[in-house]
């Protein structure tokens, strides 16, 4: 059932239709943790996109050589390598951002999005399409967490990207920058996204072997049965 995928549709897929954050609900950990400021969301998104594109590309290139038995450890190694590369690059060239994002940078390696896309896409498609998928999903993720970060920053600190915006409109509520605020904003934004796109959550495709325990994965929720 190999349908001919149009490059543009592959690219745009990750932005709305299968937005990893608001629709597939993957990568929740960093989405909630680093979105205390819009700028952090942007930074994390960029870093994750780098890893996503890199790992998608390499995995797509080696997909026919790697035997099924060692598939998982091989993919983990690839993803971990790109994650470490991004860690080193950030520490060298963007130390301030690196400090802000802290342990969530190395945690990109367990970000469900990357593994899920490797299993669902890169494993079954050529390098060019895989790059596009990585870019699209990365863009969708970046867009989503920058929005979350913006909402939390504006409501919680009265600034956006560090620039004061609400000055005298209302008193910012610190709560939005604290953990409860993260959950709350995420909940409302997902609901909003549902309303606007008028669809229900999509299963990220656990049947194909995504052992990632992601929120939308009904397999885990029902104790092992799909």
């Amino acid at each position: 059932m190999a349908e001919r995928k149009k490059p543009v549709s592959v690219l745009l897929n990750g932005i709305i239709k299968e937005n990893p954050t608001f629709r597939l609900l993957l990568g929740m950990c960093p989405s909630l943790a680093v979105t205390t400021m819009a700028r952090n969301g942007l930074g994390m998104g960029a870093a994750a996109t780098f890893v996503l594109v890199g790992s998608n590309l390499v995995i797509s290139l080696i997909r026919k050589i790697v035997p099924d038995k060692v598939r998982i450890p091989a993919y983990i190694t690839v993803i971990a390598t790109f994650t470490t590369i991004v860690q080193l690059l950030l520490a060298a060239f963007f130390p301030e951002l690196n400090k802000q994002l802290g342990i969530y940078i190395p945690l990109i390696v367990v970000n469900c999005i990357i593994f899920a896309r490797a299993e669902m896409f890169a494993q079954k498609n050529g390098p060019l399409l895989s790059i596009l998928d990585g870019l699209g999903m990365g863009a969708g993720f970046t867009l989503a967490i920058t929005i979350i970060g913006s909402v939390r920053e504006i409501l919680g600190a009265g600034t956006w990207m560090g620039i004061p915006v609400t000055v005298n409109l209302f008193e910012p509520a610190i709560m939005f920058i604290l953990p409860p605020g993260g959950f709350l904003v995420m909940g409302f934004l997902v609901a909003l996204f549902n309303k606007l796109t008028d669809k229900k959550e999509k299963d990220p495709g656990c049947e194909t072997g995504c052992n990632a325990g992601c929120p939308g994965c009904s397999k885990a929720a029902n104790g092992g049965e799909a």
Partner: protein
Amino acid sequence: MKELFAILIGAILVENFVLSKFLGICPFLGVSKKTSTALGMSGAVIFVLVMSQAVTWLANEYLLKPNSLEYLQTITFILVIAALVQFVETVLKKLMPPLYKALGVYLPLITTNCAVLGSALIFVERDYTFVEAVVFGFAAGLGFTLALILFSGIRERLETADIPEAFKGMPITLVAASLVSITFIGFAGLIIG
């Protein structure tokens, strides 16, 4: 001893992994629908966490640090965790079938659990000793369990509540998580002196 106790209480309540540090969210949101599955997952997580803290600490101390290979931490840790999970699964299946039946299905899901890798990264950041790292892992697991069980209770109630269409499923779960998270903020300040 006092230090260890502080680490224990700290990780469970003050900086609860799920509700405060946002580690372990994916399984938290995905598996907390039923209390029975919540218990199963929690058990598996504690089991793996304690062992992974021990093994990763040893790997870091005797393999990476002496050879200045700290930059290989991420890749080493995650491979150790993946291998450990695989190993535990195989051993359980062969030697303790009833335990495997209870926990087994959750084991593969733990590899990508932020909480496991996160705990390892934290002991590096805070330069914990072997014992401190393992206690921390155990406590993190307990905190995870606490959050998960509290939450599954709430979610079971939510199932029968009247919720607006757009909020059904994940959104209302997140809002509920937000409320539980607020209560945990009350624990800050527990560790003094």
